């Protein structure tokens, strides 16, 4: 079930600008992997390369090799929608569909991929909303527009929307940056649950969160603005936070960065 993701020498460009360079790392199945690093170092870019969202932007392209269970994600014959169905993503900024109700938002992935049966949709919606710790807040207004929720609620709605399609791999780009401590805990709980079956990659600026939830941590950094982001250190979270082997990592984690 769970998938292993291997990146070898992955570089990504926005037009002529190289945002990340030669990233090589392996995300083990049934683990939570945290990506940390200063703003603008290419964490989102790398995350978006994994499910081929990077290439959606005009002029953006990816080089190098990315595989999921030894299948090349960027192979010419690969169906992009299949990749994205297998590798779900929560974006840095919540983006609920404005014309859809809360319920329709949650089941959008199922519905737009052909699931019609109402009972299945309702069950999936409740399960996803409960996992995202949103069910109690919205259960009485499932027919109301998703854009009418607060920012944090919208973010949890997007998390629910992503896990409703039950992807094998879940990519989360700062999923908790707009959430209160209670919802943050709920999302972290969710990650622990999901980890039993799935593979999770999370970007976070919260060191404690990275230390709490992740099994392995990757530290990205840039030399100076305009340079591409690089992977500085990738190891077990324990090791990274207690005894990093690179000085730069230690500086960043202890807050002595830049």
């Amino acid at each position, binding site marked *: 079930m769970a998938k292993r993701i291997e990146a070898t020498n992955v570089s990504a460009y926005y037009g002529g600008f190289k945002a990340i360079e030669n990233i090589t790392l392996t995300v083990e199945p049934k683990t939570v992997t945290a990506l940390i690093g200063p703003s603008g170092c290419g964490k989102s870019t790398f995350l978006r390369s994994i499910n081929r969202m990077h290439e*959606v932007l005009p002029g953006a392209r990816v080089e190098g090799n990315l595989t999921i269970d030894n299948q090349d994600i960027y192979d010419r014959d690969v169906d992009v*929608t299949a990749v*994205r169905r297998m590798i779900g993503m929560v974006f840095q900024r919540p983006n609920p569909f404005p014309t859809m109700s809360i319920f329709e938002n949650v089941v959008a992935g199922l519905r737009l991929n052909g699931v019609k049966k109402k009972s299945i949709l309702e069950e999936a919606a409740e399960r996803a909303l409960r996992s995202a710790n949103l069910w109690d807040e919205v259960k009485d207004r499932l027919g109301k527009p998703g854009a009418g929720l607060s920012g944090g609620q919208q973010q949890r709605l997007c998390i629910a929307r992503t896990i409703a399609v039950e992807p094998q791999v879940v990519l989360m780009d700062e999923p908790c940056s707009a959430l209160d401590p209670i919802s943050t805990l709920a999302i972290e709980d969710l990650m622990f649950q999901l980890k039993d079956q799935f593979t999770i990659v999370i970007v976070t600026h919260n060191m404690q969160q990275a230390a709490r939830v992740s099994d392995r941590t990757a530290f990205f950094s840039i030399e100076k603005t305009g340079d591409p982001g690089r992977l500085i250190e990738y190891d077990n979270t324990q090791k990274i936070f207690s005894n990093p082997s690179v000085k730069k990592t230690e500086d960043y984690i202890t807050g002595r960065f830049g």
Partner: protein
Amino acid sequence: MSTTVTTHRPRPTAQPTTLRARRLPRYAAPLIALAALLVAAGIVYGTGIGGPVLVVVVAALLYLAGLFAAANAVEGRRAARNRTWSALIHSAFVLAVLPLASVVWTLVSKGVERLDGNFFGTSMNNIGARDPNGGAYHAIVGTLEQVGIATLITVPLGILCAIYVVEYGRGRFSFAIRFFVDVMTGIPSIVSGLFVLAFWVLIVSPMVNDGRPGFSGFAAALALSVLMLPTVVRSTEEMLRLVPAPLREGAYALGVPKWKTILRVVLPTALPGIVTGVMLAIARAAGETAPVLLVAGGGAAINVNPFENNQSSLALFVYQQAGDASKYSPARAWTAALTLVALVLVLTIAAKLLARRNRLGR
């Protein structure tokens, strides 16, 4: 932060010492307006240089000056500028609404004379110069059919075209499409009528018509389509571009294919704007006279078949009745004009309501 750094660096803006400011009393503005009106009337009628219109113009200028002076004296310069600008903006609004109100008033007051069952139930067939009745049934049928067919042609074509340009088009071909759509926007209606006359009426339809030219409502619909298409394409294009990219990405990330994303996420989000653009195009087409005259020929009798023989339309009916020598025809022209405006208005409202129903209530 640190209180030790309270140096003598001057602040970028002077800090107010109090939040309250002196304000003009609420009755000041109406009072100044009244005074301006009285003074203006005095000046204009006293010197005998004009009538009520000049009074209003002079009063408006006096009001602006008076308001600025009073506000400047009591509230200060910034508040005075603010007041004057908002007064100017309100006057601009009134100026813009005046012609509209005047048009509606003229239409209703003159059109009501022939607003009867006979007008909507009969045609102009066998109506001579001395007959007071006669109606626009044939013209209403013509307008509805021609505009309806033109809409059926342009809406799918225009929306697909815009989707191609926005979502798929990269490079030269899409640039060419945009260029030609822009050129089409500038085509005068008479030229589109001539084009259809030359191409469809005189060349294509004679081939299936034993050599007779094929004047018809459908030909008029074709000419109207040429006029509507660029409006539909451009407005849809603008609306599609307004849909934020993260919405598309949200759908892609769920594994939804691109075409389905466009159909189920992008189009519904842009729908209200698209509907507005389509309604603008329809309103423009419904008011066109020249192309209908050229390729549908007009006609006094009821012809419900848009594919054969002459048809009239409301705009054409107005044109013909307004130029007719009969003393009964101006009334018919006014009522037909009123009908045309009402028709477009009802269609617009209906379309907006439909588009809104698709959106969720906030």
